[in-house]
């Protein structure tokens, strides 16, 4: 646990100082929310019906951008190789990176919810508490898949292009289930009504975290 905390701390400290990931992800997210919000206003059904979709489309694009950069930090100066030289388990290295990435994706979600509440649908702000659990569970699944695939594509020349192509299809089940739960939360459904999708989401998270922990050793082996 100490190794995981140390390595995750390292990622968060670097990000807190440089704000490289959050500023780029937030800017992309903000612009996407505004464009999608304006597009949705044109619909006779209004933007409200599209709020869950706007939330997740924005998070998916912003977070993919951030995950690619998060792995680039490990490649610069071969820093990850330095960590792999130490007597620490590859699984722990994966879990630490996944934890840091999940925190970043969750922070992005908070920015997106705020922007959506301001520019698209005020209900997103009112039901932010109820949406928090499906969004955070979605962030964990997204980060788990993104961390593994990000490590796979980080060493390639086309990583920025390749990551979304391989990540989004794999992470689709997480997005769809989280989307369903967010839609129910926005409709004002009681928390008990979200139990089904939340259980499924937790199962997906567990599966992707376990798979990532197991496969990471093969991904980082040259």
């Amino acid at each position: 646990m100490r190794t995981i905390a140390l390595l995750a701390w390292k990622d968060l400290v670097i990000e807190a100082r440089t704000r490289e990931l959050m500023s780029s992800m937030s800017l992309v997210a903000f612009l996407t929310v505004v464009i999608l919000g304006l597009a949705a206003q044109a619909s006779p059904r209004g933007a409200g019906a599209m709020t869950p979709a706007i939330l997740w489309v924005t998070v998916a694009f912003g977070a993919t951008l951030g995950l690619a950069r998060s792995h680039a930090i490990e490649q610069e100066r071969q820093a990850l190789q330095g960590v792999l030289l130490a007597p620490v388990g590859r699984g722990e290295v994966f879990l630490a990176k996944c934890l840091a990435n999940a925190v970043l994706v969750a922070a992005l979600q908070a920015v997106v919810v705020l922007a959506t509440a301001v520019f698209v649908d005020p209900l997103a702000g009112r039901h932010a508490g109820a949406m928090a659990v499906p969004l955070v569970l979605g962030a964990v699944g997204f980060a788990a898949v993104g961390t593994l695939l990000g490590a796979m594509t980080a060493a390639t020349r086309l990583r920025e292009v390749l990551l979304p192509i391989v990540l989004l299809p794999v992470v689709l089940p997480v997005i769809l289930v989280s989307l369903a739960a967010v839609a129910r939360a926005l409709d004002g459904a009681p928390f008990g009504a979200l139990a089904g999708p939340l259980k499924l989401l937790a199962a997906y998270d567990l599966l992707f975290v376990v798979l990532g922990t197991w496969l990471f050793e093969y991904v980082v082996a040259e």
Partner: protein
Amino acid sequence: MYSYRVMLPDAVASAAGPCPAVSAVDVWKSYGRDRVLRGIGIEVPPGSGIAILGPNGAGKSTLLRVLAALLRPVRGAVRIRGRDPWADPAARGSIGFVGHEPMLYGGLSALENLRLFAALYGVEDPRARAAWACDLVGLARRDDPVRVLSRGLVQRAALARALVHRPPVLLLDEPFAGLDLDAAARFADYLRTFRSRGGALVLATHHAAEALRGADVAYVLVDGRLTGPQPLVRMDVAALEGWYRSAGRTGRAR
């Protein structure tokens, strides 16, 4: 001014047993169809140092990365103090490695990097050890982010990273690159004392003069095969360069 204060490697007392500190047996490594290492075999006893000489692209860096368990050989075995670093990851804790890249996080200061790595190696007081490693290599601007440091300071920080856990085995790939004359001379002094206290050293370089600074035998790596060993006792740079050239020709002729 600073001085390299040598501390006994943490586990060096037990390294003086019967098994070599580093051994490679029939090691082969390929990148696709390109065979970089062909049946390499070396043994480095505790308290000794070997230099791997060879031209650019000869495979010296690949050999060191295989010994450090950063690359898995396609055939053959590597042992660090008798243990397989792939089967027993704790064996990696005995290795200090310097490669072409510093293996440090640019967004953290040198001191923070060293604290992180000391903690990953299970050092008891990472803060104190990081400061010790900085003093050891005479690292100035230790609180500045690594990304803003000059090439020479980054190299010192990389050396400090390799030494922070006081390993009994050092695998160094061109460790003098980027160091000024004073720092290089002092680091060479450190390596001599390190070996005299039981440390084992593998030094890859293409400069004969650097090989003489840290090693007591030399090998030449040509076309993936090793020629040697050549004892370096009472040998000067000119004699070593002569042997290096002739061994290189012999290696290519095989």
